[in-house]
């Protein structure tokens, strides 16, 4: 079957979807009597117009890279992991326990240990739904979303009853030791004599996230396990015929997926708040779904989509902070982007495909 060129598939389609979403958002903003142009300018300036804005945009991007990769890996095995929220929350618990109870003298040591804690807790949270899916056929969409609620309840219990310092009203853990403070990118820039992104939360985890993209690419397209995951995702009977164990692949893919979601906690819990708060994840697990869909489950696509959502998050935040556009509208704009790039993807893709194919035919004739 003929296909449209790859660049049109990967870049043009999402771009047109994005423009459509922006056009409708502009109409909504007009309808409430605000200027869409000013809104766009505020978002772009606030998110990309200064090193300060970039510092926040890249911070959110880091979160979304991890949760996006988590969804993408599971998706290659044809598993729809929508439990990134809970897995990331559990990852936060793993990070908090490691940093609060292990005496780690320096961040270079603390980072890998906390990463192990985050990935293990995230993976463990994905293990039960994975096992239920593999052995009992309980649908992973249902079980992972239920596990989000269980994670929230568990985290609440642990923070309120176990980790909360006595006398504090805030359901949050105590601060992590100063020695485990992760360097911010602004600190690194300052070390090189550059004033960049002062007081922004983006930290070395961003580099870890980029490396994770590369590793996921290697895993999916350059390893035997990756091949098995893709084969299983395309056709379970086919994989079975080839001697691939469905149980093994389901569990492994979900463990990797959960681990990646859990790793997000390095960024928000260890890198930013430096203590565990109740709603540390703040929906990043769900945004990861949109990121993976938009990035077509490819690590590079995930990276770019995460950047877009990082921009929307930070730009939207700026919009709500500094204009009179109510914050609910920011959610509308974000939802429109998700709707057009995710759910209504074929609305743009199919006509575009027809256009390319008819042009090609004419060229051939």
């Amino acid at each position, binding site marked *: 079957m003929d296909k449209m060129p790859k660049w049109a598939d990967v870049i043009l389609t999402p771009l047109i979807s994005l423009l459509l979403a922006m056009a409708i958002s502009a109409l909504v903003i007009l309808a409430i009597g605000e200027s869409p142009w*000013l809104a766009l300018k505020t978002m772009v300036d606030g998110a990309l117009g200064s090193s*300060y804005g970039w510092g926040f945009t890249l911070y959110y991007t880091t979160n979304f890279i991890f949760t996006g990769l988590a969804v993408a890996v599971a998706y290659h095995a044809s598993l729809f992991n929508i439990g990134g929220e809970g897995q990331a929350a559990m990852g936060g618990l793993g990070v908090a326990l490691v940093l609060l109870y292990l005496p780690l003298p320096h961040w270079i040591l603390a980072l890998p240990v906390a990463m192990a804690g985050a990935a293990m807790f995230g993976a463990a949270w994905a293990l039960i739904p994975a096992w239920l899916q593999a052995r009992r056929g309980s649908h992973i969409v249902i079980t992972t979303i239920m596990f989000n609620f269980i994670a929230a309840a568990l985290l609440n219990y642990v923070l309120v009853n176990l980790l909360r310092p006595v006398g504090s009203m805030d359901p949050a853990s105590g601060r992590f030791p100063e020695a485990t403070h992760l360097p911010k990118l602004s600190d690194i820039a300052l070390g090189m004599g550059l004033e960049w992104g002062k007081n922004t939360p983006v930290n070395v985890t961003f580099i870890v996230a980029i490396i994770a993209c590369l590793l996921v690419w290697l895993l999916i397209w350059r390893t035997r396990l990756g091949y098995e995951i893709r084969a299983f995702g395309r056709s379970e009977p086919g994989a079975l015929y080839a001697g691939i164990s469905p149980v093994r692949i389901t569990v492994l893919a979900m463990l990797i997926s959960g681990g990646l979601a859990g790793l997000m906690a390095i960024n928000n819990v260890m890198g930013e708040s430096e203590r565990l708060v109740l709603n540390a994840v*703040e929906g990043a697990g769900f945004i990861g779904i949109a990121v993976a869909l938009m990035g077509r489950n490819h690590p590079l696509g995930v990276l770019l989509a995460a950047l877009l959502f990082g921009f929307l998050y930070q730009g939207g935040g700026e919009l709500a*902070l500094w204009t009179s556009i109510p914050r609910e509208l920011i959610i509308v704009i974000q939802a429109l982007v998700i709707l057009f790039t995710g759910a209504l993807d074929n609305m743009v893709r199919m006509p575009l495909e027809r256009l390319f194919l008819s042009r090609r035919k004419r060229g051939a004739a």
Partner: protein
Amino acid sequence: MGVMTRLLAGGALAALASGAALADPALIYDLGGKFDKSFNEAAYAGAQRWVEETGGAYKELEMQSEAQREQALRRLAETGANPIVMTGFAFGDVLNKVAPDYPDTKFAIIDMVVDQPNVQSVVFTEEQGSYLAGVMAAMASQSGTVGFIGGMDIPLIHKFECGYAQGFKAVKPDGKLLINYTGTTPAAWNDPVKGGELAKAQKSQGADVIYAAAGGTGIGVLQAAADEGILSIGVDSNQNHLHPGKVLTSMVKRVDNAVFDAFTAGTDLAPGVTVMDLAAGGVGVAIDDNNKDLVTAEMQAAVDDAAAKIASGEIKVHDYATDSTCPVQ
């Protein structure tokens, strides 16, 4: 606002503009949002009253995410807002970090103690107001069983619960107290349907007065109680008017006064801890035209008596926050 948008270009411009010193006060609402019909909205009411009385102007921000807290505080401080008032304990940690960087800016935080030389911490003795609500519940109850419905299961709400339990048990030592929490996620603050279901469940177990300390969820509790013909107790704002004659009273927490006072003090805001207790009128039970028929003379006397004893220190209402335990269950 026009000035604000131009500042978006970044820190450099912000630094320039701070020379212009817009010494307007600022108010930051927590994630619950400005119009939550409860805590944040009370803060808004206080700010609006200040505007009406002084004709001044203030800036306000609503938080979208955790990472924004520090961002918002720094940006407001850099644009010269003074004082900066914020609602909710969740700002405590961040304010502790930010306040020393802006020694000339005054901050006020509600519901949390932050020990910095330029911060005023405003805390309420919710346990005292809840104690009075418990006394009234005990006297209004025919069945001897009353209920408590909390929002999200966090320590702050246990403080309400514990005060209520103490007041109730002081009047009816053998009475039964039913306790339910709506949930463990922030959605628990805004789930009136579940609040209503919990109220009906408590009624079926015999409760005939139910105290809701649950933000927007409480609206459902009050509604269900009114429908079921039992009494309810509102929280934070005076909610007696929502169902006249069906709401026994409301445990009011004068967040509006705290904001009003901070705005009025302006740059002279005194640092330290301000305790808004019963004696200072920071908390209390609301009695107005809507519930006066429910409050008997005997009940009024008991409340006045308890209030006087709490104010004089004769009755010590245990504060759950000090040791995370409650002497009565």
